[in-house]
């Protein structure tokens, strides 16, 4: 059994190697079969593991080989599966498999289809490595690997310079975060002389609450999470990352990779528990990010950009949950979010597919009758993310809101407002895309068609999951009535160190429920009136005014970064290049060959080819030798 778990990541790796090496020599059908079966097999094994956990298994671990042995540092390339990993495994391989299936339809006609599928497999491998590592270094290897795959896939259509720049931006932003992660690891090793989860967490339990070293470690690790999970101030890469093919946005930039930061914080919950200050920072950053991204989402007109900002916002929700100590709730939201956000992205892909590459919702409208399946599934996703009661997003989001209420009512107000905004921009997106009149060109209208079933089938599966996925974590009042437990919390509980209880009075729960319903009904009514009845279409970019313009331009954060960081850096490096590099470094580098060449030509002079001179020099050498050793 312990050995079998190493198959989970190795199968997608094998798929990557096979497809990567044979590439276009493989028939397209085989590419799809290989990439899909490897991920499906991983999913089956993961599911089997999951069942064994339900039956009461504790954890599995195995070491493939010793990896680094240096001084006191002994690290193995070792895997570990516990309850937390099991949940992540199901999400990664399950949602990953559905997106692989979808990709067959979506990418089939791309000339680089095999390369795309091999990258997807490679990504799944690295993501599994990330969640299955039994120490921080293996996690970091996976962490870097998914970053690489993200870069490769954002710039998949590498002939477009903008896409390449987007990939580079993602990579650079992530590197900033990775730097923090690395420093955090160094500090962990210095403090605990180990990087193994078990050893570190055991040792950490002896530290007092609020220990400054632990606070430093957790903050540094969080810097890594901020980069990978696109939080303020490093979130700007995620909207740009939408340059990649849509399945990539669904898999990497919505369902899995961006939740790596959340996973890392949950994995290190022992450390975060010991540092209330870090918790405050995490919650605060999460809150600001959630609010800010939601406001930007209100004014975006690119279907994928709206979803991207929504992802940033939802990730903010997760971090708020982690920050206030509700780790299982955060993970719960990771799972439900994976369902509905992957669904929304794939639906968006289906729409883009039908529209012939058009992504601007101002050119859409009325797609309901052309894309019936996509329409229904998209609606399910919208209902889920908006938190309509009994849809999956409702359960996880209400749990987060409840936890913030316990922590700080002010934070609760901000988060409640943010979830309202979520509903607003999602419904706006929905109405503008699927209702009203078609606003695209005549040519586009003729081509509108529902996607093939290989694409719609994953949509349906994800839609079902988005609808019912929440029932594994029912709120207290509901589970009490039905006599079932909060299955999700109980499953993950063993991984959490001294879990907090966030039980509220039923009055609160009910008022929250009522408030949610009323607010959502209002949102539904007003957005419908505005975008369907009054047929309001967002104005063209040039006509946008005042604060709306600030929102449409994403608070000018990219421009501010450009002015505050990039330009001064460019100026400094320009200066160093002109003064230091050209004069000093180049001078030295060019000087060495000059001296060498001069010496060489001098030495060559001695090699005259005349025997007599050779003998004389040889004798001189012997005389020197004697003088050197015997006479002095």
């Amino acid at each position, binding site marked *: 059994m312990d050995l079998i778990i190493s198959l989970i990541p190795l199968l997608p790796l094998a798929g990557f190697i096979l497809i990567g090496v044979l590439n276009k020599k493989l028939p397209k059908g085989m590419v799809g079969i290989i990439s899909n079966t490897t991920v499906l097999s991983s999913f089956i094994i993961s599911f089997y593991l999951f069942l064994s956990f339900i039956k009461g298994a504790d954890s599995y671990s195995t070491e493939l080989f010793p990896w680094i042995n240096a001084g006191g540092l002994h690290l193995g390339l070792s895997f570990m599966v516990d309850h937390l990993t099991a949940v992540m495994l199901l999400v990664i391989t399950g949602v990953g498999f559905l997106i692989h299936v979808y990709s067959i339809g979506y990418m089939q006609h791309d000339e680089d289809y095999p390369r795309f599928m091999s990258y997807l497999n490679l990504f799944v491998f690295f993501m599994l490595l990330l969640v299955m590592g039994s120490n921080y270094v293996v996690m970091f290897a996976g962490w870097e690997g998914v970053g690489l795959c993200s870069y490769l896939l954002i710039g998949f259509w590498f002939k477009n310079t903008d896409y390449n720049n987007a990939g580079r931006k993602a990579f650079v932003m992530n590197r900033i975060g990775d730097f923090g992660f690395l420093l955090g690891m160094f500090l962990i090793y210095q403090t605990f002389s180990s990087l193994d989860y078990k050893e570190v967490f055991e040792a950490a339990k002896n530290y007092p609450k609020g220990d400054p070293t632990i606070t430093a470690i957790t903050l540094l690790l969080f810097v890594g999470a901020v980069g990978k999970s696109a939080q303020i101030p490093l979130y700007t890469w995620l909207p740009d990352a939408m340059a990649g093919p849509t399945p990539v946005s669904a898999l990497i930039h919505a369902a899995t990779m961006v939740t790596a930061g959340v996973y890392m914080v949950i994995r290190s919950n022992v450390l975060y528990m010991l540092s209330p200050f870090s918790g405050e920072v995490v919650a605060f950053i999460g809150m600001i990010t959630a609010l800010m991204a939601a406001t930007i989402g209100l004014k975006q007109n690119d279907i994928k950009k709206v979803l991207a900002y929504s992802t940033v916002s939802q990730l903010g929700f997760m971090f708020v949950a982690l920050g206030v100590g509700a780790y299982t709730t955060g993970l719960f939201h990771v799972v439900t979010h994976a369902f509905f956000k992957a669904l929304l992205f794939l639906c968006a892909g289906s729409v883009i597919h039908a529209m012939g590459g058009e992504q601007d919702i101002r050119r859409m409208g009325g797609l309901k009758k052309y894309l019936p399946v996509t329409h229904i599934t998209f609606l399910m996703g919208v209902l889920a993310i908006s938190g309509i009661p009994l849809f999956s997003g409702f359960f996880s989001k209400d749990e987060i809101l409840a936890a913030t209420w316990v922590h700080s009512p002010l934070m609760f107000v901000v988060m409640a407002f943010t979830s309202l905004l979520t509903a607003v921009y999602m419904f706006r997106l929905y109405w503008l895309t699927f209702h009203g009149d078609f606003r695209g060109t005549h040519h586009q209208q003729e081509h509108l068609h529902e996607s093939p079933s290989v694409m719609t089938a994953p949509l349906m599966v994800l839609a079902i999951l988005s609808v019912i996925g929440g029932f594994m974590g029912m709120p207290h009042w509901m589970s009490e009535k039905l006599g079932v437990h909060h299955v999700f919390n109980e499953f993950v509980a063993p991984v959490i160190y001294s879990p907090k209880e966030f039980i509220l009075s039923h009055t609160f729960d009910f008022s929250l429920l009522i408030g949610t319903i009323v607010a959502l009904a209002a949102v539904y009514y007003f957005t419908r009136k505005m975008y369907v009845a009054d047929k309001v279409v967002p104005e063209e970019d040039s006509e946008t005014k005042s604060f709306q313009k600030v929102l449409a331009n994403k608070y000018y954060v990219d421009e501010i970064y450009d002015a505050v960081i990039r330009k001064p850096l460019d100026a400094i490096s320009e200066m160093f290049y002109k003064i230091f590099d050209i004069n000093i470094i180049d001078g030295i580098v060019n000087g060495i060959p000059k001296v060498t060449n001069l010496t*060489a030509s001098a030495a060559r002079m001695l090699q005259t080819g005349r025997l007599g001179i050779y003998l004389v020099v040889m004798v001189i050498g012997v005389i*020197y030798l004697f003088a050197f*050793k015997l006479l002095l």
Partner: protein
Amino acid sequence: MNTIVILSVTGIAAMMSDVFKLKKALFGLSLLGLLIALVFSVYDWGQYATYFNQMVLTDNYAVVFTTMLIGITFLWFLMSKDFFSSHSSASEHYALILFSLTGGVMMTNFSDLTILFLGLEILSIALYILAGSDKGNLFSNEASLKYFMIGSFATGFLLFGIALIYGATSSFNLQEISAYVQQHNGSLPMYFYAGILMILTGLTFKVSAVPFHFWAPDVYDGSPTLVTTYMLSVVKMAAFAALYRLFIYCFAPVYEFWIPVFAIMSAVTMLLGNITAVYQKSLKRMLAYSSIAHAGYMLMALASPGGTSRSALMFYLLAYAISTLGVFNVLYQVHKVTGREEIKSVKGLFRKNPFAAIMLTLCMLSMAGIPPVAGFFGKYYMFVSTLNGGLTWLVLIAVLSSLIGVYFYFKVIIAAFQEPELENTAYYRQPSDLTVLYICGILSLLLGILPQFVAGLL
């Protein structure tokens, strides 16, 4: 012991094969003789025996070096199959190579200064002739004559040194000399030390150490390419085996006297060899200078004797000999087909035969000392052993001069991957002509990945 006999017999048989009209079987016969000798050599592993009144000695050191010498010669035979068959005097040339190898084996097995001298002369005299074996070529004749003249001169020094040592210790036997020196350390006459310097001169001449290196570029460049290959690989190996054995086994008690000489010689040799090689346009001449530089690195083993210097020297020699054979295989074929020897004549090799170009790259990387090939570990072991010997300054110079080396070794690699100068450039008659290159490239890589298997032998 048996090895020496078998090699001599094979040599004599090769010489007489002409008479018995067995010329066709000559090649197979020689290879067979080498294989049998190889088996007997390996068979002696772990045994310690002396022969001929303690004049010849077999121990693990001798076994390792003998095996390496025969193995390298075997590879050399494989790559020069067509050279001698095209010659009218093929049997003599085969015989001379085999005799020369016999001399080399004697130089690793000696336990007596007379055997050292005999071995060196058997090795050298055969080479004087071989250097001039391209009779119609003026440069070949010049090389032969120069080599002979300066070689005789150096032999004079060696003999004089042996005489002085005998005068001081009244023995030719290594053990006896060593015991005598141990006993009388501090009260040895001045001419004993003079004897050491004389022997040192004679032997460092053979390994082409500065300032006794002047013959090397001319001889290496002028001799037929295959003979040069043999000199660079087998002869250098035998000479270093003898030098190391003599100084470690015999003059160890007075090491303080000769260590500085080797250290300075080593530094000057590697610097001068590498710097001069930078300027060469001819691949052959560049490799001749680079061989001088490599001698400098190998001398580091004598500058810091003891510890792991023995296995470091062994590994370095092996890595160097293998990569030399590989590169010279290419050079020989290119020269044979196009008559050119410049570095740029390998341009476009990758286009024509990617595998050959990659193997050539491995060999060049090995020479430059870049991981993961054998040459890197040769240098690594050597530097570690020298650092342990306390000669940090020497290692610094060695690292710096390696950097210079990278420059000209990479010229060859870059050329191999560049576009060809002429369309349809021929680099060889048929791909199998480069078999030895493939073997050497793969061996370099294997030794680089699993160096401890060989380095652990000594």
